């Protein structure tokens, strides 16, 4: 294990310090490493190694050795043993194959072509994911390492010594992609294109047809689809966008600038409005040179756009294309699209609209099939001292009653293991300290006083307004007990306020500390320096806007992430910076502590989320797979999973244990800016710039609700403590409360829905809206439910 760990660290170091932007291989989101350039950080490869290191790995072998990336290949190669060997010669074979295919096509020998293609597929299938490393070899060591990282990051480290991990890895490694073992053949080909070498990526576009014909092809298809039966039309319409994009890119790549322009002009209006951000990027891209380093474009090239189409519709399409001999389009469909065919009724327009919108189409059904332990961990038994007389005196009778509801919510879970919960020690968690137990007890006491919310009993909202922030407030967090508020500001500072009468005090200087009688009972009180008491402490250290802040559950630490690429850990005892975690190299958009402390997750512009432990200066896991910035990161309440929301308009759920992506949720039409888990761990709510909030059932991997109402980015989401109410805060200066119980009440969890993933959302989300609360001119940046279910909201007043 140790060996493995070392290897990957080396790789990380080795990444050449090239100009980061140009080489960005955005494909899998592990561009971090390459971009990193100069710093000593592990690039994407870190992922693989770190996986191996696993959370328990204490020291990663200390100093990184400057070994070459190739070394990283070794373990990877070893893992997919069976496939690797035959694949060695694959690259050449494949190129020849392609050439032959092209020749056949040009000669119009369709049958022969088909046959050959079929065989080639088979071949590839056999080769499976291992094609990746093989191909990579040709492309260069660096490519290989990138690929490797992908493989390893998404699938568990193949060679990882952890027994459970390796067990899982067997199959996953072969498939080689986060998307799972769905379609090995396709995945393999994706991997092939998965190189940062642009020309290689683009080479597929070389097979050019007559540029002037493109418009005709496209309008022909359009005509066909529009004339097809209603039930098929909606499904086939999904083809428009990816085809449009790829045809346009082909034109651009082959330097038919004018044709490309007119093609764009002519057809961009047909595309769904939620693609307009991408279209905008596309429209600015008019030259082959621009394609280099354009991340959005590379996203298209390197990942297959996933469509879900019923078998009938697909047959229809196939027949049409074959009849028309529309090879151009057929090629694109073959090469760049992944068509997930299902049996049964075609989906309706609404069903499709609900699920599409992400940068790379829908999630494959298989991607959401793996089991997720979404249950809560068993709470440690803590004896609640019943010595608080006042309570007993008053509630002599009330007590048993109050106990009951608690039993329902917490008690039952703590008694017997939740069947959906992960094994208690699946992820090693820090032990409870005495102070934690005290806090838990406090929490339980507060729980008894908690207000039971519901449609008839809405919470009060207390708004904390940051004045004179000059538009500089970028992040807010509130401690679980609602005693402290931290604000991250554009001026690089982090400010911590105490919102209780208790002032913030730092510990005395070492010299003074030595004078203290350590035996005294109030030693904890004595070590505090009374002179430093103040309501506000300012933490200096970052060199860029602070985009994320998170308190540790024990309130001793604060994390902040910044534009400067670091995550910093601050002590709230001394109000100094303890550690700067470097690794992202690009702006870090969000960070959050695990609900049990110790671990934390961060996500940033480099398209990866990283899992860290506070005592490791390097990440334990790298979650790579997003196609654009990771905007927000949240821990699952049981700390075994991490959810990330991205600018690629997908939400992914990652397994902390092995780094796998276990869920991909598509359906948002804009970058996702907020996430929250329901307290029982079953559901996930996400908010995006499109102003919609989507609800997901984690266990089934389904979208279960859509809350429309906000008119601007949803910046913050939070469930009430018992999960009855969902509060959402937005840039449109409102807080809205939603009836979560009702939203989750009549879930379509029948087998059919689960199996097909076809969802029918309730039409009217307005019925779920319980209240809308306006601020004067204050975007709602953060929401928090106190332990008694009072809502705290925070934001900076921005005069118009």
């Amino acid at each position, binding site marked *: 294990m140790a060996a493995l760990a070392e290897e990957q660290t080396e790789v990380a170091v080795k990444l050449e310090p090239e100009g980061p932007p140009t080489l960005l291989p955005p494909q899998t989101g592990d561009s971090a490493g390459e971009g990193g350039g100069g710093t000593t950080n592990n690039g994407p490869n870190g992922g693989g190694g770190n996986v191996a290191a696993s959370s328990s790995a204490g020291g990663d072998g200390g100093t990184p050795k400057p070994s070459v990336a190739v070394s990283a290949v070794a373990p990877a190669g070893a893992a997919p043993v069976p496939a690797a060997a035959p694949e060695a010669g694959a690259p050449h074979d494949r190129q020849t194959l392609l050439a032959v295919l092209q020749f056949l096509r040009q000669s119009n020998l369709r049958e022969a072509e088909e046959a050959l293609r079929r065989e080639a597929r088979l071949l590839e299938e056999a080769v499976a994911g291992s094609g990746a490393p093989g191909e990579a070899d040709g492309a260069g060591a660096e490519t290989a390492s990138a690929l490797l990282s992908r493989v390893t990051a998404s699938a568990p480290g193949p060679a990882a010594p952890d027994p459970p991990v390796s067990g899982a890895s067997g199959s996953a490694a072969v498939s080689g992609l986060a998307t799972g073992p769905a379609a090995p053949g396709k995945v393999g080909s994706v991997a092939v294109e998965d190189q940062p070498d642009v020309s290689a990526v683009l080479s597929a576009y070389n097979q050019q047809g007559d540029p002037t014909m493109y418009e005709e092809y496209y309008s022909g298809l359009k005509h066909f689809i529009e004339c097809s039966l209603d039930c098929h039309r909606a499904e086939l319409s999904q083809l428009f966008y990816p085809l449009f994009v790829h045809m346009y890119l082909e034109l651009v790549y082959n330097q038919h600038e004018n044709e490309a*322009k007119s093609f764009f002009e002519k057809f*961009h209006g047909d595309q769904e409005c939620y693609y307009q*951000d991408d279209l905008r990027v596309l429209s600015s891209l008019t030259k082959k*040179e621009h394609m280099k380093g*354009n991340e959005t474009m590379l996203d298209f090239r390197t990942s297959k756009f996933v469509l879900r189409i019923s078998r009938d519709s697909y047959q229809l399409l196939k027949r049409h294309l074959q009849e028309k001999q529309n090879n151009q389009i057929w090629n694109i469909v073959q090469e760049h699209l992944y068509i997930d065919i299902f049996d049964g009724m075609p989906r309706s327009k609404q069903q499709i609209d609900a699920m599409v919108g992400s940068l790379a189409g829908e999630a494959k059904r298989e991607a959401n099939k793996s089991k997720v332990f979404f249950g809560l961990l068993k709470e440690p038994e803590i004896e609640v001292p019943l010595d608080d007389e006042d309570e007993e005196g008053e509630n002599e009778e009330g007590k048993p009653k109050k106990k009951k509801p608690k039993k329902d919510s917490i008690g039952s879970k703590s008694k017997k293991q939740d069947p959906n919960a992960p094994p208690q020690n699946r992820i090693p968690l820090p032990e409870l300290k005495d102070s934690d137990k005290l806090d838990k007890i406090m929490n339980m006491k507060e729980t008894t006083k908690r207000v039971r919310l519901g449609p008839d009993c809405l919470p009060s909202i207390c708004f904390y307004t*940051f*004045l004179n922030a000059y538009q500089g407030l970028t992040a807010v967090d509130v401690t679980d007990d609602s005693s402290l508020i931290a604000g991250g500001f554009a001026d690089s500072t982090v400010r911590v306020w105490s919102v209780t009468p208790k002032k913030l005090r730092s510990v005395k200087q070492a010299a003074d500390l030595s004078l203290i009688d350590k035996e005294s009972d109030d030693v904890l009180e004595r070590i505090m320096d009374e002179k430093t008491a103040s309501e506000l402490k300012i933490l200096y250290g970052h060199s860029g806007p602070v985009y994320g802040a998170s308190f540790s559950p024990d309130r001793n630490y604060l994390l902040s992430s910044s534009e400067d690429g670091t995550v910093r850990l601050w002590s709230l005892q001394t109000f100094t910076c303890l550690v700067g975690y470097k690794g992202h190299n690009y702006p870090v958009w969000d960070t959050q502590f695990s609900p049990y402390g110790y671990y934390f997750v961060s996500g940033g512009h480099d398209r990866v989320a990283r899992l860290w432990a506070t005592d490791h200066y390097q990440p334990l896991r790298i979650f790579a797979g997003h196609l654009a910035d990771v905007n927000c990161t949240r821990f699952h309440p049981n700390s075994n999973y991490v959810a990330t929301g991205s600018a690629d308009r997908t939400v992914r759920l990652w397994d902390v244990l092995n780094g796998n992506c276990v869920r991909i949720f598509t359906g948002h039409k*804009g970058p996702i800016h907020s996430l929250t888990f329901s307290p029982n761990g079953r559901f996930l709510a996400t908010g995006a710039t499109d102003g919609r909030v989507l609800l997901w059932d984690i266990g089934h991997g389904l979208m279960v609700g859509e809350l429309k109402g906000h008119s601007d980015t949803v910046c913050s989401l939070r469930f009430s403590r018992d999960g009855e109410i969902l509060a959402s805060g937005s840039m449109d200066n409102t807080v809205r409360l939603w009836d979560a119980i009702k939203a989750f009440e009549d879930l379509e969890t029948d087998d059919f829905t689960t199996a097909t993933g076809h969802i029918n959302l309730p039409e009217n989300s307005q019925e779920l809206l319980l209240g809308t609360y306006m601020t004067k001119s204050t975007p709602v940046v953060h929401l928090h439910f106190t332990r008694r279910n009072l809502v705290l909201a925070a934001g900076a007043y921005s005069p118009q």
Partner: protein
Amino acid sequence: MTASCISGSRHRGLHLSALGHLPSGEGRRGSRMAEEKKLKLSNTVLPSESMKVVAESMGIAQIQEETCQLLTDEVSYRIKEIAQDALKFMHMGKRQKLTTSDIDYALKLKNVEPLYGFHAQEFIPFRFASGGGRELYFYEEKEVDLSDIINTPLPRVPLDVCLKAPKEQQKAEATEPLKSAKPGQEEDGPLKGKGQGATPADGKGKEKKAPPLLEGAPLRLKPRSIHELSVEQQLYYKEITEACVGSCEAKRAEALQSIATDPGLYQMLPRFSTFISEGVRVNVVQNNLALLIYLMRMVKALMDNPTLYLEKYVHELIPAVMTCIVSRQLCLRPDVDNHWALRDFAARLVAQICKHFSTTTNNIQSRITKTFTKSWVDEKTPWTTRYGSIAGLAELGHDVIKTLILPRLQQEGERIRGVLDGPVLSNIDRIGADHVQSLLLKHCAPVLAKLRPPPDNQDAYRAEFGSLGPLLCSHVVKARAQAALQAQQVNRTTLTITQPRPTLTLSQAPQPGPRTPGLLKVPGSIALPVQTLVSARAAAPPQPSPPPTKFIVMSSSSSASSTQQVLSLSTSAPGSGSTTTSPVTTTVPSVQPIVKLVSTATSAPPSTAPSGPGSVQKYIVVSLPPTGEGKGGPTSHPSPAPPPTSAPSPLGVSALCGGKLEAGESPPPAPGTPKANGSQPPGCGSPPPAP
């Protein structure tokens, strides 16, 4: 390519919004699922002329058209790219506006040196110039002289970030009175400003209002945010407070009516409360009887408003009202002014407050009772305070009278006799004792009438109550006679509290007439207000109705004379008035000089009209002129300076700091007097100076 010069013939300027998608409405909301909204793509490209201009500015003269074209394509593309990245930073920064720093960060992402020096301005204006067939859009960079920058004083440090939440106020409440956090500061600025801007007609109110605010707010700088009143509310507040303490009785009645009935005043309650308490505090010191009366009437109106929940402000109101009951001195001339009426009125208010808000937890009533008893029992308590204490107790109801007052009747009787029958030590004491006696009689008689069996024997009374016995006896007899009526009357008196008010002003009219505040205007313009008053008054005495009861009691001994006074006044000949008053005659003369004084102020120029009022101050300002002159004429004395000091002093005093402020701020209107006014505040206390 700095933004220094970009020429554009086809496309105007370099608007980022044209390049990227700025959050310009459509861009921002466009991402919503609005099917109808079709993407508006701009294929904007920088004109190649721009490239030429840039090249020229770099010293490259001839640049080929082809090169230009390539360059502009490339540059446009890169700019769009950067703009898109910049947007990312805007979103993550939770802002709606793209800033220059966003662009910087976007450049940083691309490993490009950020553009320095574009931070300060919110908006960078592009200038346009044309000539030689070329059009230029450029950003004007001015040359800056370094020394200028160095020498200019540093701008104020911007306010630091702070966190505000309603919760904080809740916290504050726990320890300190709620209101203290709220009123004041905020309005201070705006309101004052408005006050100044207001028409001169409002002059009086202006000052009136100013004092409490100024005094009250220890100008702590608080971030402006909390509990701002809307503009309408501010206006309303200003109008109401001005009217309440202003000179126009009609306006006042309207204002009080509004306070007593409007349902939406809750927001302003803390301010009103502060206004009153501060006003009382200041005006007691200044002995400004009229203002105290007005303020008490405001309290009354607030209490009458069924929609207001006063409990939270009682802590502020009670001290104010109590002050008006027991203060040693409430007016400048205790011998003449009818401060007794104020005490009675305030006593009734306290009783009302007790009735409404006293609970077993706050013990308001018992605390108040204790206060009264303590000051009454004290031997050294002056008669005024004694009167107030008794009145306060008496208003609390029969039980209190029975348990606390009756036992002390004998003792008190002795003391009264000592003053009335003994050698004349002080006229003031005499009057005081006299009032106390009538007060006791008034309140005790009905109680006794109920307590004791019918046969009223003078001797028995004497035996029990000492020197007061006989008088008491006769009153009891009367009381019994009116027993039936009495109840009604009592009711009415309470009901008609409005009535007493006129009384108050009236009673003042006669004596202080010349100089007191309410009448303040009177000095110059006695005619108007006094007449009205008088007419009211005139009507009053003849009527046997309820109000008189109050009345008579107060002025009992001198009632006749006082009425006479009034009447005489109504005749409006000051001289005659003075003569007619018998008991008070002594005082009248003193009054007279005051009248003179005031008028003296007016005497100065022909333009006296304005000046007179001015001197009298804020109060009167507008209306006085004509009559004032007429009045002033006769009485006028040449000495302008001295009189103001003495006579107007009450006014000036009343105006308090507001007055000062006023003087300081707008001295010009009246030449001589205002100045005097300004000088007054310090020497407010002395009544007799005159000539």
